[in-house]
């Protein structure tokens, strides 16, 4: 699975980190970091992360 975050849209709300902590995290300065090619087993939580992003900045490309 390929995950793309539009960093021009991202405003560091961090909701994705709660939904998919194995894929998304906040670095020390409070900015988003993420794994762009997570294991397919994590699809449900990445979909959830995409749903809860207030800016709708997360895209899942198969």
């Amino acid at each position, binding site marked *: 699975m390929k995950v793309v975050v539009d960093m021009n849209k991202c405003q560091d709300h961090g909701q994705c980190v*709660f939904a998919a902590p194995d894929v998304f995290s906040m670095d020390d300065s*409070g900015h988003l970091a993420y794994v762009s090619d997570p294991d397919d087993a994590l699809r449900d939580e990445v979909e959830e992360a995409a749903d*809860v992003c207030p800016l709708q900045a997360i895209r899942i490309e198969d």
Partner: protein
Amino acid sequence: MTSRSARIVVAGASMAGLRAAEQLRAAGWTEAITLVGDEPHMPYNRPPLSKEVLAGKAAFESLSFRPRASVADVQWRLGTKVVAARLAQNIVEFDDGEAFSYDGLVVATGMRPRRLRCPGPLAGRHTVRTIDDAQGLRQALTRPGTRVVVVGGGFIGCEVAATAVALGAREVTVVDPLPLPMVGPLGELLARALLKRHEERGVRFALGTGVTGFTGDDHVTGVALADGTVLPADVVVESVGSVANTEWLDGNGLDLSDGVPTDEHLRVGGRSDVVAVGDVARFPNARYDGVPRRVEHWCIPTDTAKHAAKTLVAHLTGASHDLSPFAPLPTFWSDQHDFRLQSFGAPVLGKEDVRVLEGDLDGDVVVGYHVGGRLAGVVALGGQAAAAAASRYRAELLKQPALTA
């Protein structure tokens, strides 16, 4: 009637309707789904309408949701309004006269802005709910020398006021009968800090007084207040709450005084084939006191859709479900000027016992709201560090046993 496949009708084609359709698929519903919505647009994200989009920093086109592939085959009836329902016969009626039968119904018709009924011209008075609203308001706000009066000092009103200042409006005044902005959801401590921050950034306030009318002939020229003053205004924004779109459900024996009441699994009227989602749903939250409430947070369409879809699909497919009662942890945010409010839990339940947990009210601060000495909600005000600090309390809020009434 010829035989037909089973069908779920989703009344309302906004965020809650889209999420419901996606979650019906995720819950295993493979048969037909029809979404019916009165706006001509595909579902879009509303929060930027009072902020980035109103400010011109994001294009209107950027708001569209990307529906999941699983809903590529659903039927969209956009520009169509559901005007009546006969729940006992499993029939909904559209404004084009069609009567449509369903096996399952999702109520997702949402809210519309409440309007002020006091006398005066309508032209120049705006609300902020739809793309069309925001487009009209942006045009009005970007005229030079604009004087803006925002009626209603809640989150949307304060967001619009901040955006109007940033756009260079000559004067921006927020009017509210309450003594402080956002005091209803946040309580006095934070509301006072917010008033100060807004005033420092150029927003004026007329608090503790209501609106009695609008001056002007064809177009609004001012806002008359109960204390006798008239605020000159080229643009008025009415952000005085919302009204549930439930008239179409009249005549079905439901108490529609404030949205659509549901049980703990979001079922409506004791029926297993009707569920409600989004901000129209008045649901008990098992995490708190079990009192049914409507919750107009952005997270609620997604949370309710997930639970309601499982409930409905289990019923329609004859499967049993072992869902626990619906118990979301509410969260909301609001961006105003250069600061953000970020909330987790239910601060509104703990307004009697508010404590500063971290930081101070002039900088980044995290405030805790308590019920019976226990943390029920946190709100951060400030920059990224404050929001991050608040999120550390989220796990604690999730672990709490239910608050009993």
